[in-house]
Protein backbone atom coordinates (compact mmCIF):
# COMPACT_ATOMS: atom_id res chain seq x y z
CA UNK A 1 0.00 0.00 0.00
CA UNK A 2 1.35 3.41 -0.97
CA UNK A 3 -1.31 5.35 0.87
CA UNK A 4 -3.65 4.53 3.73
CA UNK A 5 -7.15 5.75 4.35
CA UNK A 6 -5.80 7.63 7.36
CA UNK A 7 -3.43 9.55 5.11
CA UNK A 8 -6.18 10.25 2.62
CA UNK A 9 -8.11 11.82 5.48
CA UNK A 10 -5.13 13.92 6.56
CA UNK A 11 -4.51 15.14 3.00
CA UNK A 12 -8.20 15.93 2.52
CA UNK A 13 -8.09 18.15 5.59
CA UNK A 14 -4.98 19.92 4.32
CA UNK A 15 -6.74 20.48 0.99
CA UNK A 16 -9.99 21.43 2.73
CA UNK A 17 -12.08 18.76 1.05
CA UNK A 18 -14.92 17.20 2.99
CA UNK A 19 -14.87 13.70 1.56
CA UNK A 20 -17.70 11.26 2.06
CA UNK A 21 -16.71 7.81 3.38
CA UNK A 22 -17.38 6.39 -0.08
CA UNK A 23 -15.12 8.98 -1.70
CA UNK A 24 -12.44 8.27 0.88
CA UNK A 25 -12.49 4.63 0.03
CA UNK A 26 -12.58 5.13 -3.72
CA UNK A 27 -9.77 7.72 -3.57
CA UNK A 28 -7.60 5.53 -1.36
CA UNK A 29 -7.71 2.84 -4.02
CA UNK A 30 -7.24 5.19 -6.97
CA UNK A 31 -4.44 7.18 -5.38
CA UNK A 32 -2.74 3.97 -4.38
CA UNK A 33 -2.78 2.80 -8.00
CA UNK A 34 -1.52 6.14 -9.28
CA UNK A 35 1.22 6.38 -6.65
CA UNK A 36 2.32 2.83 -7.44
CA UNK A 37 2.62 3.87 -11.07
CA UNK A 38 4.81 6.80 -9.90
CA UNK A 39 7.33 4.26 -8.65
CA UNK A 40 8.72 4.15 -12.18
CA UNK A 41 10.45 7.39 -11.23
CA UNK A 42 12.78 5.46 -8.95
CA UNK A 43 14.47 3.95 -12.00
CA UNK A 44 16.35 6.85 -13.62
CA UNK A 45 19.49 8.05 -11.87
CA UNK A 46 18.83 11.59 -10.69
CA UNK A 47 21.67 11.80 -8.19
CA UNK A 48 23.41 14.71 -9.93
CA UNK A 49 20.44 16.19 -11.75
CA UNK A 50 19.17 19.68 -10.95
CA UNK A 51 15.42 20.02 -10.53
CA UNK A 52 13.61 21.95 -13.26
CA UNK A 53 11.04 24.49 -12.09
CA UNK A 54 10.75 26.55 -15.29
CA UNK A 55 10.54 25.21 -18.81
CA UNK A 56 12.29 28.22 -20.28
CA UNK A 57 15.55 29.61 -18.88
CA UNK A 58 14.68 33.09 -17.77
CA UNK A 59 15.50 35.18 -14.75
CA UNK A 60 14.40 38.54 -13.36
CA UNK A 61 11.14 40.00 -14.56
CA UNK A 62 10.46 43.28 -12.82
CA UNK A 63 8.00 46.11 -12.83
CA UNK A 64 8.83 49.62 -11.71
CA UNK A 65 7.46 50.86 -8.39
CA UNK A 66 4.59 52.86 -9.82
CA UNK A 67 1.01 53.00 -8.65
CA UNK A 68 -1.30 51.93 -11.46
CA UNK A 69 -4.74 51.69 -10.08
CA UNK A 70 -8.09 51.48 -11.70
CA UNK A 71 -10.69 52.04 -9.01
CA UNK A 72 -13.03 49.08 -9.26
CA UNK A 73 -13.80 48.01 -5.70
CA UNK A 74 -17.47 47.61 -6.52
CA UNK A 75 -16.79 45.38 -9.48
CA UNK A 76 -14.31 43.33 -7.47
CA UNK A 77 -16.81 42.83 -4.68
CA UNK A 78 -19.68 42.05 -7.05
CA UNK A 79 -18.92 38.31 -7.01
CA UNK A 80 -18.68 38.06 -3.22
CA UNK A 81 -20.97 35.40 -1.72
CA UNK A 82 -21.56 37.84 1.15
CA UNK A 83 -20.40 41.35 1.90
CA UNK A 84 -21.04 44.21 4.29
CA UNK A 85 -20.28 47.79 3.33
CA UNK A 86 -17.19 47.16 1.27
CA UNK A 87 -15.92 44.26 3.38
CA UNK A 88 -16.09 40.61 2.45
CA UNK A 89 -18.28 38.89 4.97
CA UNK A 90 -17.09 35.44 6.00
CA UNK A 91 -17.98 32.90 8.67
CA UNK A 92 -16.58 33.91 12.04
CA UNK A 93 -12.87 33.38 12.41
CA UNK A 94 -11.90 31.94 15.76
CA UNK A 95 -8.26 32.44 16.76
Amino acid at each position, binding site marked *: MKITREEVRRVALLARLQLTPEEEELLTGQLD*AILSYMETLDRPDTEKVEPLAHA*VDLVNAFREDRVVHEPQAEELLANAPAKENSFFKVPKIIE
Partner: protein
Amino acid sequence: MSHYALTLHELAAKLSRREISSVEVTESVFGRIAATDERLHSYLALCRESALQEARQADERLKSGGDCPPLTGVPVALKDIFITRNVPTTCASKILGNFVPPYDGTAVRKIKESGAVILGKTNMDEFAMGSSTENSAFVVTRNPWDTERVPGGSSGGSASAVAADQCIAALGTDTGGSIRQPAACCGIVGLKPTYGRVSRYGVIAFASSLDQVGPMTKDVTDCALMLEAVAGKDPCDSTSVDVPVPAYASQLHGGVKGLRLGMPKEYFIPGIQAEVEKSVKDAIRLLEKNGVEVVEVSLPHSEYAVAVYYIIATAEASSNLARYDGMKYGYRAPAKDLTETYMRTRQEGFGPEVKRRIMLGTYALSAGYYDAYYLKAQKVRTLIKRDFEAAFRKCDVIITPTTPTTAFKIGEKTQDPLQMYLSDIFTISVNLAGLPGLSLPCGFDGNGLPIGMQIIGKHFDEATILRVAYAYEQATEWHKRKPKL
Protein backbone atom coordinates in the same frame (compact mmCIF):
# COMPACT_ATOMS: atom_id res chain seq x y z
CA MET B 1 -20.63 26.90 -49.49
CA SER B 2 -22.18 28.34 -46.39
CA HIS B 3 -20.37 31.20 -44.73
CA TYR B 4 -19.81 29.27 -41.54
CA ALA B 5 -17.74 26.68 -43.38
CA LEU B 6 -15.12 29.22 -44.46
CA THR B 7 -11.62 29.12 -43.10
CA LEU B 8 -10.28 32.18 -41.39
CA HIS B 9 -8.06 33.20 -44.28
CA GLU B 10 -10.84 32.65 -46.83
CA LEU B 11 -13.21 34.70 -44.72
CA ALA B 12 -10.69 37.49 -44.10
CA ALA B 13 -10.17 37.80 -47.85
CA LYS B 14 -13.91 37.96 -48.51
CA LEU B 15 -14.42 40.48 -45.73
CA SER B 16 -11.69 42.75 -46.96
CA ARG B 17 -13.09 42.58 -50.50
CA ARG B 18 -16.46 43.22 -48.86
CA GLU B 19 -18.02 40.23 -50.58
CA ILE B 20 -19.72 39.40 -47.31
CA SER B 21 -20.21 41.26 -44.08
CA SER B 22 -19.14 40.24 -40.61
CA VAL B 23 -22.78 40.40 -39.51
CA GLU B 24 -23.73 37.92 -42.23
CA VAL B 25 -21.03 35.47 -41.33
CA THR B 26 -21.69 35.88 -37.59
CA GLU B 27 -25.38 35.21 -38.15
CA SER B 28 -24.48 32.23 -40.27
CA VAL B 29 -22.27 30.79 -37.52
CA PHE B 30 -24.97 31.33 -34.89
CA GLY B 31 -27.36 29.58 -37.25
CA ARG B 32 -24.99 26.65 -37.49
CA ILE B 33 -24.66 26.57 -33.69
CA ALA B 34 -28.44 26.62 -33.32
CA ALA B 35 -28.71 23.73 -35.75
CA THR B 36 -26.00 21.53 -34.27
CA ASP B 37 -25.17 22.37 -30.70
CA GLU B 38 -28.07 20.49 -29.17
CA ARG B 39 -26.28 17.38 -30.38
CA LEU B 40 -22.70 18.47 -29.78
CA HIS B 41 -22.77 20.74 -26.73
CA SER B 42 -19.62 22.56 -27.75
CA TYR B 43 -20.64 25.77 -26.05
CA LEU B 44 -21.30 26.66 -22.43
CA ALA B 45 -22.35 30.22 -23.17
CA LEU B 46 -23.06 32.31 -26.23
CA CYS B 47 -22.59 36.07 -26.53
CA ARG B 48 -25.04 36.62 -29.34
CA GLU B 49 -25.83 40.25 -28.67
CA SER B 50 -22.31 41.47 -28.04
CA ALA B 51 -21.04 39.37 -30.95
CA LEU B 52 -23.46 40.99 -33.38
CA GLN B 53 -22.56 44.36 -31.97
CA GLU B 54 -18.87 43.60 -32.53
CA ALA B 55 -19.66 42.35 -36.02
CA ARG B 56 -21.48 45.59 -36.85
CA GLN B 57 -18.50 47.59 -35.60
CA ALA B 58 -16.19 45.41 -37.70
CA ASP B 59 -18.34 46.08 -40.76
CA GLU B 60 -18.18 49.83 -40.10
CA ARG B 61 -14.44 49.58 -39.92
CA LEU B 62 -14.19 47.49 -43.06
CA LYS B 63 -16.50 49.87 -44.86
CA SER B 64 -14.44 52.91 -43.92
CA GLY B 65 -11.49 51.36 -45.72
CA GLY B 66 -8.03 51.93 -44.35
CA ASP B 67 -6.03 49.45 -42.33
CA CYS B 68 -8.04 46.89 -40.43
CA PRO B 69 -6.46 44.49 -37.99
CA PRO B 70 -6.07 40.97 -39.45
CA LEU B 71 -9.02 39.31 -37.66
CA THR B 72 -11.51 42.12 -38.18
CA GLY B 73 -14.98 40.66 -38.25
CA VAL B 74 -13.90 37.02 -37.77
CA PRO B 75 -16.12 35.06 -35.33
CA VAL B 76 -14.04 33.06 -32.86
CA ALA B 77 -14.80 30.88 -29.85
CA LEU B 78 -12.98 30.89 -26.53
CA LYS B 79 -12.48 27.98 -24.19
CA ASP B 80 -14.23 28.85 -20.95
CA ILE B 81 -10.87 28.99 -19.20
CA PHE B 82 -10.25 32.47 -20.62
CA ILE B 83 -11.19 35.32 -18.32
CA THR B 84 -13.64 37.60 -20.13
CA ARG B 85 -14.81 40.81 -18.53
CA ASN B 86 -18.54 40.83 -17.86
CA VAL B 87 -18.98 37.46 -19.56
CA PRO B 88 -19.49 34.51 -17.19
CA THR B 89 -16.35 32.39 -16.95
CA THR B 90 -16.82 29.05 -15.24
CA CYS B 91 -13.88 26.85 -16.22
CA ALA B 92 -16.65 24.24 -16.47
CA SER B 93 -16.78 24.12 -12.69
CA LYS B 94 -19.66 24.48 -10.31
CA ILE B 95 -17.36 26.42 -8.00
CA LEU B 96 -17.27 29.25 -10.57
CA GLY B 97 -20.82 28.66 -11.73
CA ASN B 98 -21.89 32.25 -11.07
CA PHE B 99 -18.57 34.00 -11.65
CA VAL B 100 -18.45 37.12 -13.80
CA PRO B 101 -14.88 38.37 -14.15
CA PRO B 102 -13.96 42.03 -13.61
CA TYR B 103 -11.20 42.00 -16.22
CA ASP B 104 -10.07 40.66 -19.61
CA GLY B 105 -7.06 38.41 -19.94
CA THR B 106 -4.21 39.33 -22.28
CA ALA B 107 -4.94 36.79 -25.02
CA VAL B 108 -8.60 37.86 -25.03
CA ARG B 109 -7.62 41.52 -25.16
CA LYS B 110 -5.24 40.82 -28.05
CA ILE B 111 -7.71 38.80 -30.05
CA LYS B 112 -10.29 41.54 -29.56
CA GLU B 113 -7.76 44.16 -30.61
CA SER B 114 -7.14 42.08 -33.72
CA GLY B 115 -10.78 42.68 -34.56
CA ALA B 116 -12.23 39.26 -33.75
CA VAL B 117 -15.90 38.80 -32.87
CA ILE B 118 -16.32 36.74 -29.70
CA LEU B 119 -19.04 34.13 -30.18
CA GLY B 120 -19.04 32.54 -26.77
CA LYS B 121 -17.32 30.23 -24.34
CA THR B 122 -16.70 26.57 -25.12
CA ASN B 123 -16.98 23.53 -22.93
CA MET B 124 -13.98 21.82 -21.40
CA ASP B 125 -12.92 19.42 -18.70
CA GLU B 126 -13.34 21.15 -15.35
CA PHE B 127 -10.25 23.30 -14.72
CA ALA B 128 -8.77 21.70 -17.86
CA MET B 129 -8.31 18.43 -16.01
CA GLY B 130 -9.15 15.68 -18.41
CA SER B 131 -8.71 14.28 -21.88
CA SER B 132 -12.32 13.84 -22.93
CA THR B 133 -14.39 16.88 -21.83
CA GLU B 134 -16.45 14.40 -19.80
CA ASN B 135 -15.22 16.17 -16.66
CA SER B 136 -17.24 19.30 -17.36
CA ALA B 137 -19.55 20.04 -14.45
CA PHE B 138 -22.27 21.04 -16.89
CA VAL B 139 -22.45 18.98 -20.05
CA VAL B 140 -20.60 16.35 -22.09
CA THR B 141 -19.41 17.53 -25.48
CA ARG B 142 -19.70 15.08 -28.37
CA ASN B 143 -17.32 14.39 -31.18
CA PRO B 144 -18.80 15.72 -34.45
CA TRP B 145 -17.43 12.67 -36.34
CA ASP B 146 -19.26 10.28 -34.03
CA THR B 147 -21.48 11.68 -31.33
CA GLU B 148 -21.07 8.52 -29.25
CA ARG B 149 -17.42 9.45 -28.84
CA VAL B 150 -15.51 12.07 -26.92
CA PRO B 151 -14.04 15.08 -28.71
CA GLY B 152 -10.88 14.73 -26.61
CA GLY B 153 -9.98 17.24 -23.97
CA SER B 154 -9.62 19.33 -22.17
CA SER B 155 -10.30 21.86 -24.98
CA GLY B 156 -12.98 19.55 -26.38
CA GLY B 157 -15.60 22.26 -26.82
CA SER B 158 -13.27 24.40 -28.92
CA ALA B 159 -12.18 21.38 -31.00
CA SER B 160 -15.71 20.25 -31.63
CA ALA B 161 -16.82 23.79 -32.49
CA VAL B 162 -14.04 24.19 -35.07
CA ALA B 163 -14.63 20.76 -36.59
CA ALA B 164 -18.39 21.34 -36.81
CA ASP B 165 -18.06 24.85 -38.28
CA GLN B 166 -19.63 26.35 -35.16
CA CYS B 167 -16.93 29.00 -35.29
CA ILE B 168 -14.27 30.12 -37.72
CA ALA B 169 -11.45 29.49 -35.28
CA ALA B 170 -10.98 29.04 -31.55
CA LEU B 171 -8.54 29.43 -28.70
CA GLY B 172 -7.71 26.64 -26.33
CA THR B 173 -5.14 25.92 -23.68
CA ASP B 174 -2.76 23.02 -23.38
CA THR B 175 -1.13 21.76 -20.18
CA GLY B 176 -0.44 18.16 -21.18
CA GLY B 177 -2.06 17.90 -24.59
CA SER B 178 -5.33 19.74 -24.12
CA ILE B 179 -5.12 21.48 -27.51
CA ARG B 180 -3.36 18.81 -29.56
CA GLN B 181 -5.23 15.74 -28.35
CA PRO B 182 -8.76 17.12 -29.01
CA ALA B 183 -7.48 18.59 -32.29
CA ALA B 184 -6.42 15.08 -33.28
CA CYS B 185 -9.70 13.58 -32.10
CA CYS B 186 -11.73 16.12 -34.08
CA GLY B 187 -9.57 16.33 -37.21
CA ILE B 188 -8.47 19.93 -36.93
CA VAL B 189 -5.21 21.83 -36.48
CA GLY B 190 -4.15 22.68 -32.92
CA LEU B 191 -0.94 24.30 -31.78
CA LYS B 192 0.58 24.51 -28.35
CA PRO B 193 3.21 27.23 -28.67
CA THR B 194 6.48 27.36 -26.75
CA TYR B 195 6.01 27.97 -23.04
CA GLY B 196 6.27 31.74 -22.67
CA ARG B 197 5.18 32.47 -26.25
CA VAL B 198 1.65 33.55 -25.33
CA SER B 199 0.74 35.32 -22.11
CA ARG B 200 -1.01 33.27 -19.44
CA TYR B 201 -2.43 36.40 -17.80
CA GLY B 202 -6.18 35.95 -17.62
CA VAL B 203 -6.10 32.22 -18.25
CA ILE B 204 -7.40 30.30 -15.27
CA ALA B 205 -4.37 28.43 -14.02
CA PHE B 206 -4.22 24.66 -13.91
CA ALA B 207 -0.47 23.98 -13.79
CA SER B 208 1.44 27.22 -14.14
CA SER B 209 4.73 25.79 -15.38
CA LEU B 210 2.99 23.87 -18.16
CA ASP B 211 -0.10 25.86 -19.23
CA GLN B 212 0.02 27.54 -22.60
CA VAL B 213 -2.55 29.24 -24.84
CA GLY B 214 -2.86 28.22 -28.48
CA PRO B 215 -5.01 28.29 -31.62
CA MET B 216 -7.40 25.59 -32.79
CA THR B 217 -8.25 26.04 -36.43
CA LYS B 218 -9.53 24.53 -39.66
CA ASP B 219 -6.15 24.62 -41.37
CA VAL B 220 -2.51 25.53 -40.91
CA THR B 221 -2.75 29.02 -42.40
CA ASP B 222 -5.49 29.90 -39.93
CA CYS B 223 -3.33 28.55 -37.14
CA ALA B 224 -0.49 30.85 -38.16
CA LEU B 225 -2.83 33.86 -38.29
CA MET B 226 -4.29 33.13 -34.86
CA LEU B 227 -0.85 32.65 -33.33
CA GLU B 228 0.30 35.99 -34.70
CA ALA B 229 -2.67 37.63 -33.03
CA VAL B 230 -2.03 36.33 -29.52
CA ALA B 231 1.75 35.78 -29.30
CA GLY B 232 4.24 38.10 -27.65
CA LYS B 233 5.76 39.27 -24.42
CA ASP B 234 3.28 40.52 -21.83
CA PRO B 235 4.42 42.68 -18.92
CA CYS B 236 1.65 41.05 -16.86
CA ASP B 237 3.17 37.57 -17.25
CA SER B 238 6.71 37.26 -15.88
CA THR B 239 7.13 33.93 -17.66
CA SER B 240 6.26 35.28 -21.10
CA VAL B 241 9.32 35.73 -23.24
CA ASP B 242 10.52 38.76 -25.14
CA VAL B 243 11.28 37.08 -28.46
CA PRO B 244 10.13 38.76 -31.70
CA VAL B 245 6.92 37.33 -33.15
CA PRO B 246 7.47 36.44 -36.81
CA ALA B 247 4.78 36.96 -39.43
CA TYR B 248 4.02 33.23 -39.37
CA ALA B 249 1.43 33.18 -42.10
CA SER B 250 3.72 34.81 -44.64
CA GLN B 251 6.49 32.27 -43.93
CA LEU B 252 4.45 29.15 -44.60
CA HIS B 253 5.51 28.71 -48.19
CA GLY B 254 9.22 28.11 -47.72
CA GLY B 255 8.94 24.38 -48.36
CA VAL B 256 10.64 21.62 -46.44
CA LYS B 257 13.60 20.74 -48.61
CA GLY B 258 16.66 20.04 -46.52
CA LEU B 259 14.88 19.99 -43.21
CA ARG B 260 15.78 17.11 -40.92
CA LEU B 261 12.82 15.28 -39.48
CA GLY B 262 13.33 13.25 -36.30
CA MET B 263 11.40 10.04 -35.64
CA PRO B 264 11.67 9.08 -31.97
CA LYS B 265 11.77 5.32 -31.69
CA GLU B 266 10.06 5.42 -28.27
CA TYR B 267 6.90 6.78 -29.89
CA PHE B 268 6.29 3.97 -32.34
CA ILE B 269 5.72 1.10 -29.97
CA PRO B 270 3.20 -1.74 -29.48
CA GLY B 271 -0.07 -0.52 -28.05
CA ILE B 272 -0.63 2.16 -30.64
CA GLN B 273 -3.67 1.67 -32.82
CA ALA B 274 -2.30 0.22 -36.06
CA GLU B 275 -4.10 2.73 -38.29
CA VAL B 276 -2.63 5.59 -36.29
CA GLU B 277 0.90 4.28 -36.65
CA LYS B 278 0.44 3.62 -40.36
CA SER B 279 -1.04 7.07 -41.07
CA VAL B 280 1.80 8.87 -39.29
CA LYS B 281 4.43 6.76 -41.04
CA ASP B 282 2.74 7.42 -44.39
CA ALA B 283 2.81 11.11 -43.61
CA ILE B 284 6.51 10.96 -42.87
CA ARG B 285 7.11 9.17 -46.14
CA LEU B 286 5.18 11.85 -47.97
CA LEU B 287 7.28 14.55 -46.39
CA GLU B 288 10.38 12.60 -47.31
CA LYS B 289 9.23 12.69 -50.92
CA ASN B 290 8.95 16.43 -50.56
CA GLY B 291 12.57 16.71 -49.55
CA VAL B 292 12.93 16.23 -45.83
CA GLU B 293 15.63 14.02 -44.47
CA VAL B 294 14.33 11.53 -41.92
CA VAL B 295 16.57 10.64 -38.98
CA GLU B 296 15.92 8.38 -36.04
CA VAL B 297 16.20 10.09 -32.68
CA SER B 298 15.82 8.83 -29.15
CA LEU B 299 13.91 10.30 -26.25
CA PRO B 300 14.84 7.68 -23.67
CA HIS B 301 13.07 9.25 -20.70
CA SER B 302 9.69 9.43 -22.44
CA GLU B 303 8.38 6.52 -20.39
CA TYR B 304 8.54 8.68 -17.25
CA ALA B 305 6.67 11.62 -18.71
CA VAL B 306 3.21 10.65 -17.50
CA ALA B 307 4.41 10.05 -13.94
CA VAL B 308 6.41 13.31 -13.87
CA TYR B 309 3.50 15.20 -15.34
CA TYR B 310 0.90 13.94 -12.92
CA ILE B 311 3.07 14.91 -9.96
CA ILE B 312 4.08 18.39 -11.16
CA ALA B 313 0.73 19.31 -12.68
CA THR B 314 -1.28 18.16 -9.69
CA ALA B 315 1.08 19.77 -7.16
CA GLU B 316 0.82 23.12 -8.92
CA ALA B 317 -2.92 22.66 -9.34
CA SER B 318 -3.45 21.91 -5.65
CA SER B 319 -1.99 25.34 -4.92
CA ASN B 320 -3.59 27.16 -7.87
CA LEU B 321 -7.03 25.91 -6.89
CA ALA B 322 -6.72 26.93 -3.23
CA ARG B 323 -8.24 30.31 -4.08
CA TYR B 324 -11.61 28.70 -4.72
CA ASP B 325 -12.60 28.80 -1.09
CA GLY B 326 -16.01 30.49 -1.09
CA MET B 327 -14.75 33.72 0.45
CA LYS B 328 -14.35 36.30 -2.34
CA TYR B 329 -16.18 34.91 -5.36
CA GLY B 330 -17.77 31.77 -6.64
CA TYR B 331 -19.77 29.13 -4.85
CA ARG B 332 -20.06 29.06 -1.04
CA ALA B 333 -21.74 26.14 0.69
CA PRO B 334 -23.84 26.89 3.74
CA ALA B 335 -22.04 25.60 6.82
CA LYS B 336 -21.77 26.20 10.55
CA ASP B 337 -18.26 27.60 10.79
CA LEU B 338 -15.25 28.69 8.79
CA THR B 339 -13.53 25.33 8.43
CA GLU B 340 -16.72 23.60 7.49
CA THR B 341 -17.44 26.35 4.96
CA TYR B 342 -14.10 25.70 3.30
CA MET B 343 -14.53 21.96 3.32
CA ARG B 344 -18.09 21.81 2.11
CA THR B 345 -17.62 24.55 -0.50
CA ARG B 346 -14.75 22.68 -2.06
CA GLN B 347 -16.41 19.31 -1.65
CA GLU B 348 -19.57 20.46 -3.42
CA GLY B 349 -17.91 22.90 -5.81
CA PHE B 350 -15.30 20.60 -7.38
CA GLY B 351 -15.96 17.48 -9.42
CA PRO B 352 -14.36 14.08 -8.80
CA GLU B 353 -11.37 14.44 -11.16
CA VAL B 354 -10.46 17.86 -9.79
CA LYS B 355 -10.66 16.55 -6.24
CA ARG B 356 -8.58 13.53 -7.17
CA ARG B 357 -5.86 15.76 -8.58
CA ILE B 358 -5.97 18.19 -5.67
CA MET B 359 -5.52 15.22 -3.36
CA LEU B 360 -2.64 13.81 -5.38
CA GLY B 361 -0.91 17.20 -5.61
CA THR B 362 -1.42 18.02 -1.95
CA TYR B 363 0.02 14.65 -1.04
CA ALA B 364 3.04 15.10 -3.31
CA LEU B 365 3.91 18.42 -1.66
CA SER B 366 3.17 17.44 1.91
CA ALA B 367 5.78 17.05 4.61
CA GLY B 368 7.76 13.88 4.20
CA TYR B 369 6.77 13.28 0.56
CA TYR B 370 8.10 16.39 -1.17
CA ASP B 371 11.52 14.92 -1.99
CA ALA B 372 10.22 11.54 -3.04
CA TYR B 373 7.59 12.93 -5.39
CA TYR B 374 7.78 16.61 -6.30
CA LEU B 375 11.54 17.08 -6.22
CA LYS B 376 12.11 13.75 -7.91
CA ALA B 377 9.64 14.66 -10.65
CA GLN B 378 11.37 18.00 -11.22
CA LYS B 379 14.68 16.19 -11.64
CA VAL B 380 13.29 13.70 -14.13
CA ARG B 381 11.74 16.68 -15.90
CA THR B 382 15.29 17.94 -16.42
CA LEU B 383 16.19 14.60 -18.02
CA ILE B 384 13.19 14.78 -20.34
CA LYS B 385 14.12 18.29 -21.41
CA ARG B 386 17.70 17.16 -22.05
CA ASP B 387 16.43 14.31 -24.25
CA PHE B 388 14.83 16.85 -26.55
CA GLU B 389 17.89 19.09 -26.54
CA ALA B 390 19.98 16.14 -27.66
CA ALA B 391 17.42 15.10 -30.29
CA PHE B 392 17.23 18.61 -31.69
CA ARG B 393 20.95 18.61 -32.32
CA LYS B 394 20.16 15.96 -34.95
CA CYS B 395 16.93 17.30 -36.39
CA ASP B 396 14.79 20.40 -36.93
CA VAL B 397 11.40 18.95 -36.06
CA ILE B 398 10.20 15.73 -34.47
CA ILE B 399 7.14 13.90 -35.71
CA THR B 400 5.03 11.55 -33.60
CA PRO B 401 1.42 10.44 -33.43
CA THR B 402 -0.59 12.94 -31.37
CA THR B 403 -2.53 10.20 -29.59
CA PRO B 404 -2.13 6.43 -29.34
CA THR B 405 -5.71 5.90 -30.55
CA THR B 406 -8.46 7.80 -32.25
CA ALA B 407 -11.35 9.21 -30.21
CA PHE B 408 -12.64 6.76 -27.62
CA LYS B 409 -16.24 6.19 -26.59
CA ILE B 410 -17.97 8.33 -24.01
CA GLY B 411 -17.68 6.61 -20.64
CA GLU B 412 -14.99 4.23 -21.86
CA LYS B 413 -12.24 5.47 -19.58
CA THR B 414 -14.03 7.35 -16.82
CA GLN B 415 -13.71 4.51 -14.34
CA ASP B 416 -9.96 4.21 -14.65
CA PRO B 417 -8.13 7.51 -14.18
CA LEU B 418 -4.75 6.01 -14.99
CA GLN B 419 -5.92 4.74 -18.40
CA MET B 420 -7.31 8.22 -19.09
CA TYR B 421 -3.95 9.76 -18.11
CA LEU B 422 -2.15 7.46 -20.54
CA SER B 423 -4.07 8.87 -23.50
CA ASP B 424 -1.81 11.94 -23.20
CA ILE B 425 1.35 9.86 -23.40
CA PHE B 426 2.62 11.48 -26.62
CA THR B 427 1.79 15.09 -25.82
CA ILE B 428 2.86 15.45 -22.20
CA SER B 429 6.66 15.49 -22.72
CA VAL B 430 6.32 18.50 -24.96
CA ASN B 431 4.79 20.53 -22.12
CA LEU B 432 7.38 19.28 -19.65
CA ALA B 433 10.14 20.49 -21.99
CA GLY B 434 8.29 23.74 -22.78
CA LEU B 435 8.46 23.06 -26.52
CA PRO B 436 5.98 23.99 -29.25
CA GLY B 437 3.90 21.17 -30.70
CA LEU B 438 1.22 21.07 -33.37
CA SER B 439 -1.33 18.43 -34.27
CA LEU B 440 -2.80 18.21 -37.75
CA PRO B 441 -4.98 15.63 -39.50
CA CYS B 442 -3.09 12.87 -41.30
CA GLY B 443 -5.77 10.32 -42.03
CA PHE B 444 -8.87 8.49 -40.83
CA ASP B 445 -9.33 5.09 -39.23
CA GLY B 446 -11.75 2.40 -40.28
CA ASN B 447 -14.53 4.02 -38.25
CA GLY B 448 -14.07 7.28 -40.10
CA LEU B 449 -12.41 8.91 -37.11
CA PRO B 450 -9.64 11.44 -37.70
CA ILE B 451 -6.02 10.67 -36.91
CA GLY B 452 -3.62 13.35 -35.75
CA MET B 453 0.09 13.75 -36.30
CA GLN B 454 2.21 15.79 -33.92
CA ILE B 455 5.05 18.02 -35.09
CA ILE B 456 7.34 19.16 -32.29
CA GLY B 457 9.79 22.03 -32.76
CA LYS B 458 12.62 23.76 -30.99
CA HIS B 459 11.92 26.49 -28.44
CA PHE B 460 10.32 29.47 -30.18
CA ASP B 461 10.56 27.80 -33.56
CA GLU B 462 6.84 27.64 -34.28
CA ALA B 463 7.63 28.96 -37.76
CA THR B 464 9.37 25.76 -38.82
CA ILE B 465 6.60 23.56 -37.39
CA LEU B 466 4.03 25.57 -39.32
CA ARG B 467 6.09 25.36 -42.49
CA VAL B 468 6.27 21.56 -42.29
CA ALA B 469 2.58 21.31 -41.43
CA TYR B 470 1.68 23.57 -44.32
CA ALA B 471 3.76 21.56 -46.79
CA TYR B 472 2.00 18.38 -45.65
CA GLU B 473 -1.41 19.99 -45.75
CA GLN B 474 -0.82 21.25 -49.28
CA ALA B 475 0.02 17.70 -50.38
CA THR B 476 -3.07 16.12 -48.77
CA GLU B 477 -6.83 16.52 -48.62
CA TRP B 478 -7.55 15.41 -45.03
CA HIS B 479 -8.26 18.91 -43.79
CA LYS B 480 -10.99 19.34 -46.36
CA ARG B 481 -13.12 16.50 -45.00
CA LYS B 482 -16.05 17.56 -42.87
CA PRO B 483 -18.11 15.54 -40.40
CA LYS B 484 -21.68 14.84 -41.46
CA LEU B 485 -24.06 16.49 -39.05
